[in-house]
């Protein structure tokens, strides 16, 4: 009988595993070592059907075994919708949704290519747009996001993807316009100066 997809067998080496577990636990605030693999998180995970064999419990296992490469680049990290169902059902109060968020940031800092570049583009562009004006401007934000996608797809010769993206976004934009739900004006907040000072502070801390 053909074997269904399985996680690769990993040999446990504490000297490799411990630093990774420690880092993820500290940054995400989640007690990963408390996981006893009951899989309640997996049962409730809405993207379980999309992510294949990587369910929240297995992501935790991968981290606990110290497989840094796999931890930063797998379907769950990049397809997790941060609904936090895992965390509300975990008997040990581990919120894997927070762990995937942490791993996204770790991937970025160590220049690991995101498995789903669009997801990374989306969140980066969103926050940058919010900080630039102090408020988010939906039109500007989506334009920048689509530009990034466009160049990424272009560099990989994914012309069909470019075409499909353009068609679907134009369709959405037109139907939003018909319902006066597309806005062209710019909204801003003077508070952006304060926010950008805080953002600089955060960057400086990371480099220290």
């Amino acid at each position: 009988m053909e074997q269904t997809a399985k996680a690769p067998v990993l040999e446990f080496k504490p000297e490799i595993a411990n630093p990774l577990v420690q880092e993820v636990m500290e940054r995400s605030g989640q007690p990963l070592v408390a996981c006893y693999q009951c899989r309640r998180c997996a049962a409730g995970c809405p993207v379980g059907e999309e992510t294949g064999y990587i369910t929240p419990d297995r992501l935790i296992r991968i981290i606990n075994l110290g497989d840094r490469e796999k931890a930063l680049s797998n379907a769950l990290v990049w397809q997790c919708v941060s609904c936090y169902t895992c965390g509300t059902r975990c008997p040990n109060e581990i919120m894997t949704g927070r762990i995937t968020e942490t791993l996204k940031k770790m991937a970025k800092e160590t220049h690991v290519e995101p498995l789903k570049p669009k997801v990374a583009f989306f969140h980066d562009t969103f926050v940058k747009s919010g900080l630039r004006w102090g408020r988010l401007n939906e039109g500007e934000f989506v334009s920048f996001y689509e530009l990034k996608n466009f160049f990424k797809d272009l560099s990989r010769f994914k012309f069909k993807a470019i075409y499909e993206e353009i068609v679907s976004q134009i369709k959405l934009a037109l139907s939003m316009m018909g319902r006066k739900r597309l806005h062209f004006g710019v909204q801003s907040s003077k508070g952006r100066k304060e926010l950008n000072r805080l953002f600089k502070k955060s960057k400086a801390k990371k480099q220290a």
Partner: protein
Amino acid sequence: MEIAYYPGCTLQQSSSLYDVQSQRVFKELGIILKEIEDWNCCGATSAGKYDDFIAIAMPSRNIGIAEQDGYSEMVIPCSACYSRTLVAQQRLADDPALKDEINAELTKKVKGGLKVSSILEVLLTTVESGMLADKVVKKYKNLKPVCYYGCMMTRFPYGVPVPDDVENPQGMETILKTLGIKALDWNYKTDCCGASAAINDHDTSINLMAKIMQDAIARGANCFVVTCPMCQLNLDAYQDEICKKHEIQERLPVFFITELVGLAMGLSPKELQVDRHFVDSVSLVQELDKELEAA
């Protein structure tokens, strides 16, 4: 009564109908929403995936503004803004060093003690006081809504006191009951619509919404009721695509809770901007109105 009001970016743009409805409905209930001055973007769920510090700092500035301008309560209709603000507030309360660090750059500093309320919490106070029941002039008995809470009303990325049942919240049902509307029981009330995945991981999001749609139809619903502008936009704007892909014939209007409260109080669909939905919603309202007239 006056309370502070944080509309958030989306209520000034794609979901401005929610802003109009909220202000109008609360005015009718004797609650004046005072938009806080020069508020900023809360960072939504993206900030938490980008930079932990800024994810707390962004909503903190808004909390500071509301507190320094003398408000004791702030209502936030958008579920994402509500969740982020509530979480930031709790983080600052738990970590004085973080609070000092953020306050150092803020003109209006966070003191602590502001009550951050969702739209349901404020509406529920009018249910309790009897104010809402007094204002109801229309009882849409044939409206069969399913209440869709999504993620952000009951599940938070950080330990905050949750105002409703995590798995089976009842806030919207209670409000609808006061309006004479019986909401249907169903399975997907706190499931995820995919939120930003509708844009950045489209197929995943469409699959998630198809399940939500299918259960609503199986229960015999004729509309959704939501509080979150992201859920509203997703279920509304992509409904045609979801239904075509999954061979669903029905189309269900996706109402904001404020819309149904407003209609029940006798406000006109035009005033509540019911015509700004993607799925035709005005027809259902007209149909219900006709039934009421006939009765």
